[in-house]
């Protein structure tokens, strides 16, 4: 995991349900007003670096001193045996990894892991094992609290980060799941992997469109220097407004900045509602209709 852009521009906190759940969980540990000060700190951009590695979070937070304070969080990681149990339950259902790969934390992830007697999120504040180089003895100090909020926004973009905290990178997890799938197929005696592997590909046209032709230098393009070529007439576009002009918006999902933010008081797991779609959906529809009108009126 790489560091956040260290420009002090991050002022947002997590908005997806799992990020809010993380914040809510911290709140439930009764940490009091320190969390609120942390949120303030995070909004003001004091967290200048955040690095998430398996089992450890390293962050730099600008404080009152010249050198930034270093915050370190070392949550409890799963043991190898625990990970094997986790892999087993995750591999059993395609949905879990599918959603993770799609940037979503499956909403039933905790239940799934519970089957393996595991918890994704810390069950107590102590489990987080946080330290900060600031003189403030309170735990969490406002620096650590600020890091929690920035961490939550990291979870937004990459739900795998939650699992990384438990000791595995996404790559390691994906590879382990792949191996597990392969052996399951062998165990089940699934129909021979290699036998019809290539043969059953449906290929209608044999034309290879592989690879872009290298661009000829200008000096070697003098023959058709002025010409488009015949193929331009094959350009086939329709200006008709799409049935669902806002489909791309829907694919993008909620825009964090516009969504209700996680902060003290934000309910965990509240239904996500894409304000972005409400705000921009009309514009998309209007643009599509206007484009069609423009295309057919000229």
């Amino acid at each position, binding site marked *: 995991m790489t560091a956040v852009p260290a420009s002090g521009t991050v002022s947002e906190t997590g908005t997806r349900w799992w990020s809010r759940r993380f914040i809510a969980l911290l709140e439930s540990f009764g940490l009091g007003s320190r969390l609120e000060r942390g949120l303030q700190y995070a909004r003001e951009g004091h967290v200048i670096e955040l690095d998430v590695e398996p089992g450890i979070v390293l962050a730099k937070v600008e404080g009152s001193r010249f050198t930034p304070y270093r915050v370190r969080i070392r949550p409890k990681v799963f043991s190898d045996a625990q990970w094997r149990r986790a892999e087993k339950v995750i591999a059993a259902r*395609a949905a879990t990894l*599918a959603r993770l790969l799609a940037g979503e934390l499956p909403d039933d992830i905790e239940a799934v892991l519970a089957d393996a007697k595991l918890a994704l999120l810390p069950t107590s504040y102590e489990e987080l094992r946080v330290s900060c180089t600031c003189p403030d003895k309170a735990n969490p100090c406002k620096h650590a609290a600020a890091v929690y909020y920035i961490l939550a926004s990291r979870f937004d973009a990459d739900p795998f980060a939650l699992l990384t905290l438990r000791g595995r990178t996404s790559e390691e997890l994906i590879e382990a799941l792949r191996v597990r799938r392969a052996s399951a197929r062998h165990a089940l005696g699934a129909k021979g992997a290699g036998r019809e592997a290539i043969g059953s590909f449906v290929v209608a046209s044999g034309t290879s469109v592989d690879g872009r032709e290298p*661009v000829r230098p200008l000096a070697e393009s003098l023959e058709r220097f002025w010409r*488009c070529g015949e193929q331009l007439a094959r*350009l086939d576009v329709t200006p008709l407004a799409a049935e669902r002009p806002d489909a791309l918006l829907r694919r993008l999902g909620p825009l964090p900045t516009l969504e*209700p933010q996680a*902060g003290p008081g934000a309910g965990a797991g509240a239904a996500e509602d894409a304000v972005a779609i409400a705000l*921009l959906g009309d514009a998309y529809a209007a643009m599509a209709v206007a484009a069609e009108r423009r295309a057919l009126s000229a």
Partner: protein
Amino acid sequence: MRAVVVSVARWSELEQALLDGGRAGAGSAAGSSGSRPAAGESGSDWGRQALPMGRGPSGACESVRGLRETGTAMLAVHAIWSREQRLCIWAEHSTLPARAQGRPGRRPKVPRPLPHPFAAGTALLLEAMRALDAAGAASSATAAATLTLRLPSLEASPQASPQLLRLTDEVPVGPLGLRAWEVDTLALEPAAAAALLLSLPPSAPSGIAYGDSLQFFVEAAKLALALIAAGRLRPALERGGHGWRARWLAVADGPADAAQIDLLTRSLPPLLRAEVVGEGGEAGNSGEIDPQWLVSGLMTALVDALARELNPGPAQIQPYPHTGAGPASVASPGHALPETVAAWLAALAADDPLVVGDDRELAALAEALEDWWAAAERYAAQRMFRTCFRLVAPDGDDSDADEQAGEGPSPSTEAPQPSDGSRAQLLAAVDAGSDAADAAWRVEFLLQHKDDPSVLVPAAEVWAHSDRLAALERVLENPQERLLGGLGHALALWPELAPALEEPAPTSVSLTAEQSYRFLTESVPLLEQAGFAVLAPPWWRQRPRARLVVRPEGEQWEPSEMFGLSGLCAYEWRVAIGDQTLSLAELEALAELKVPVVKARGRWIALTADDVEMALRFFKRRQAQGRASAAELLREGLAVGPAGRERPEVEIEAAGWLGALLAEDGDRRIEPVPAPAGFVGELRPYQQRGVSWLAFLSSLGMGACLADDMGLGKTVQLLALLLAERERAPGQGGQAPGPTLLICPVSVTGNWRREAERFAPALRVHVHHGRERLRDAELVGAASSGDLLITTYALAVRDQAALRQVEWGRIALDEAQNIKTYEAKQTRAIRSLRARHRVALTGTPVENRLSELHSIMDFLNPGLLGSAAGFREQFATPIERWRDGAAAARLRRATGPFILRRVKTDREIISDLPEKIEMRVDCHLTREQASLYQAVVAEMLERVEQVSGIARAGVILQALVKLKQVCNHPAHLLKDRSRFAGRSGKLARLEELLDEALAEGDKVLCFTQFAEFGQQLRGHLQERLGVEVSFLHGGTTKAARDQMVERFQSPEGPSVFVLSLKAGGTGLNLTAASHVIHYDRWWNPAVEDQATDRAFRIGQRKNVQVHKLTCVGTLEERIDLLLADKRELAQQIVGSSEAWLTEMSTGQLRQLLTLSADAVAADGVDGVDAAVLAAADQMGLAA
């Protein structure tokens, strides 16, 4: 009887030409007249631009007006996308010197590139822009800019683009290399560029030729517009040079979009990569511009500019409009829309993308937007394969079912079944369908290759290959995660996928019929938009069509009934889906189903509820069955409604003679009308069919457009029709057919009269033309008591009050393209004339724009194609601009039955035709020509009296030459390099002939005996027609001559070849030509024939038409008559020279040369002035 489903392809070649983007410059009359008002309107806007006058390389004062007046110059306009992300328009000028002059003054240390020697200066570019930017769309945001371009060059001369038509034929030869040149351009900001490109006239205005680069940019702008219509863009916030800017970015990552972008990139003309930046010129330019980079910058700029123009802005956006239904947790701080967000939303719709606000907050917003996109993009990025869903119907492979069914009798030809029976059958099918529904609808998961959609990898294969999958040299890394990630994304758009993902390695999901229907109607559009591939079965998305089944009652159509046929037909409305036909009852049964997916007669049918409802609405307004006249049913069945989305497509299926009419080869199926006895001469078989076809449509009262190629005898077919209906009428006891009003251009009135006298002497013909023409009651009387009244377009307008009082049996328009402008005064006047039947004769129903076809069809069958505006939206724009094949097919179907077009390249027509057709083409003098002519004659008659012998002969010969020159063109006599266009009736006629020939794709030889005039003619034609014209004269070198001949003979070479009679009369083989025009006459048939034979060779599989342009009422006509009447005598007295004329007495000379009254077209409204009038009318300037 065999029913025939309408599918008419009679003018498919026409449509093809349109879809191919039209033939360049095929008749640019509309373009030139269209550009003039535009220049006038937008002139003031341009005038306001405080632009520095460009460096004119020639040093001369330039203007497009100046260009036009000399009548020989033109511009080839090109465009470049500069590195500053602006569209830079530049142009080559045809008459500027080809070679560069050195820069005056001291040689600079670092050699600067020279100015491009024949690039147009800024002032001229602005003039050109006025013509191109008719709507004034780009009149703001234009600036002059000088670019340095690397162009293919010889030593001191840049290569001219293929679009530049130069007047010299000396093509510089030598090895080409790249050399940098300074070029003046007009730079347009993206918004102005998009506006210009989307409103560019489809055919270039007069004096301008489009370079390919310009067409490239038009396609790019269309693609940008289409991306916005499809919603394929995303909002972003970027830090620019001067702050934060709100941007719309194109998202063209779907396979279809990517393919289009790729196509665009591959089509990029190398010219676009020619820009050199920096002062160093060639030396400083080592890097090559990458086409992909260029296209990406171009598309980004165009999409952004268009989107912010089309975006209505945040005025319509309510902050948190969903608060009522939304989460209760929308509490502070997120409750009110943050200021920065509001500013960003506003800037997304503003001309100025700048967003002002707190820098930190904006940076955070920008980052959030990028994360937002990255999260979605993670799945999409770099995927060569994408997740694909394939719906499979319960009984397995649907395509197999299709094939089997295809072998049986086509459902559309089955006799209609009693509706009760079908209903029972259908409902049985529905039951069967619902049984199957519970069984096993299935959506399979696959991976599909992004560039080659035929490469599909089933999920089972994916699960079998853990880390790498290779197929046909395409390697996919991590296929399982690719598939899983896709399924994960799809889950958000299609929740019913979830049960399948409970398995560890899912390959498909099972659905009920209802779920499948929901999948197809609700999820598929979302999935496709999100970049997933969906393979829906072939029967999906077939919209119901309304089919009018018509059966003429009783016996066959009898040609003897051709006049006054009431033709009652039984009809029934049916619903057509794919190739299935349902009755209304069956549709209603379908509508009652909750899920309208059923299997009927072995085929699946799926309709959306909206479609069913729309179809039912349509039918409720109509009687399901009944009887009506054939004409009425044709109108209903072929009409195109005002709105294609609110009503189903209508098609007509007719049996018997009506079906014959609607068939593609309708003219062959119609019962032939016997050849009229009164016709002198013989109708060729295809002409006979044409007459029958006209008679048939006439009997229905439906207007007909006879659009045969030039030279196939449209005139005689109409004359034969008139005879036929008159010969038949008495026998039927009916009343005699009313008179026919024939409206034609002035130039052919004489021809019509002569042809009528020759082929149909029984007809009572009156020519309404000239100063002494009949007025009011006299006119009405003469018209009513005759068979054929011939008049001109101008007089049809001027005397419309009187003409309206006649009960016309028919109005026929010759050269019907004269009413191509729907709104023109002339068109409106002619449309308002009433007649029982209407006919249009034209070789070119569409010269430039499809709207011309609408105007002609609306005259023939009012309302059939809807309003002009509706037509533009439904047909003209989709077909012309967007190459919409479906719209073209619809138009063809609607107009096909009323257009009969035979081309002379048709094998069968060829065998019907003689190999060589000679015709005299009559022209009229303009007033200017007439007064010059009279002056020359008067002067000669005076001088001839004063001299004798050789001197007398000299005076006469000199005068003959002068008279020929006058007939050719006033400028030819005066040699004053004055304006060329619009001053010669002969030239106007030549232009008409060439327009027609070029529209038909023919090549033409044009002979003149005057070399210097040939040069002028060539220059004028090149500008007027916008195509290259070759010119061969005595001074042409052998090498150049051979090159010209070779180029003319090749299909890609120039289509018009002007030759001086002396240089081109012998020794050349120019068999590519199918027309030979003798612009001026040589009074020796042998000389003319010899020239004609350049194009004509015995045994050649092509027909040659020879047109001899002859000015009516002048010596040209007199001598022509003399030669024709007394051919033998003529051969005796006419030697190889024209010396015999010098031996005439003064009295004979006077008789031969004096101008007769009909030389000038009546009222000064001749072909030329009529064109000017029409243009003035278009501009709304006519009184």
